[in-house]
């Protein structure tokens, strides 16, 4: 019996180097599965999930007229429950005019500039987070398909390169933790697979909602690298790669994370 165990253990260790590297599709797990029961319960109940407060604010903003065009999002897009269903699961998406991928936040600001003649909302401002949370919430439960567009291939590849590239004074790549060492712990906290299923999400540490870019920037600061600016092509490419890497996982917005 014990020799069988030893053989099984030996096989497991032999298999480890093969496991390191990209996570096979059927082994991909949302950050939700790494959380404790209390935090899960907080996310699961819409009346205890603080992210839902932002969704409510976003719902109000959706039908509030803005800019000199005196138009609300709802005036063009109608009922978000149908018009925005599944949209966030496809973002970052290619903007044909700009010929590059843009995030949902950037799409909202483009809409504000082009159709509402309104000023852009600043990154991580309450209004922008609320609007993108409200839009992304309409995709809750829908499988992620971002990056499927063949025209996005070079940008997904760019994001993948950034994910694999060591950086900062600690000389760590994203993949060193999130591909090779997930399920282990870093300073007592579980290392997740970095699957961006629930953004914008409510992070208890932040005590507010935050975007995937905020999360990426704080990881970069963590490895003592210079973080890319909000909306920079590098962050968008990383975001796109992460979403394509999470292909098939279900959207959870607004998720709650410790």
């Amino acid at each position, binding site marked *: 019996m014990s020799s069988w165990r030893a053989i099984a253990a030996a096989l497991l260790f032999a298999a480890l180097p093969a496991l390191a590297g990209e996570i096979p599709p059927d082994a991909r797990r949302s950050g939700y599965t790494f959380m404790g029961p209390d935090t899960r319960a907080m996310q699961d109940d819409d009346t*205890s999930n603080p992210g839902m*407060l*932002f969704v409510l*604010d976003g719902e109000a903003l959706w039908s509030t007229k803005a800019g000199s065009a005196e138009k609300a999002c709802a005036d063009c897009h109608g009922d978000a429950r149908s018009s925005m269903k599944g949209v966030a699961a496809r973002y970052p998406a290619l903007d044909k005019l700009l010929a590059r991928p843009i995030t949902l936040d950037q799409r909202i600001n483009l809409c504000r500039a082009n159709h509402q003649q309104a000023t852009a909302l600043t990154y991580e401002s309450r209004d922008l987070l609320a609007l993108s949370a409200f839009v992304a919430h309409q995709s809750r439960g829908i499988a992620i398909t971002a990056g499927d567009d063949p025209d996005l291939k070079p940008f997904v590849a760019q994001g993948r390169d950034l994910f694999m590239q060591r950086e900062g004074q600690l000389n760590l790549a994203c993949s060193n933790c999130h591909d090779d060492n997930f399920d282990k712990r870093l300073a007592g906290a579980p290392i997740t697979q970095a699957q961006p299923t629930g953004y914008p999400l409510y992070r208890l540490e932040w005590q*507010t909602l935050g975007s995937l870019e905020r999360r990426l920037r704080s990881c970069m600061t963590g490895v003592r690298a210079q973080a890319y600016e909000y909306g920079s092509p590098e962050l968008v490419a990383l975001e796109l790669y992460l979403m394509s890497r999470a292909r098939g996982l279900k959207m959870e917005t607004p998720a709650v994370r410790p």
Partner: protein
Amino acid sequence: MATLINVPAKARRGDIIEIRTLTSHIMETGFRHTMAGALVPRDIITSFICRYNGTEVFRADLFPAIAANPYLSFFTIAKESGKFEFEWIGDNGYSSTASASITVE
């Protein structure tokens, strides 16, 4: 401010029911400084009151150590159909209200 209230829509007379409330608030402690060194003034909710058909059934005092977007859960006994009224009071004249109805059979 956005508020989320969870009161059971129906209950039997005498049932112990749980009420959960969540409200938007930054709960700025008053202990933090800006990058320039200036103190960020305190801005918190200081008290919460729940009234059941006009009678106060629960009250809480809140302090700077309480997290942003305070979540409160408490219990009461379902006595009669009617309305729960919630009130949050805080710094800088902050006041916010919400209500929820219950049918007691």
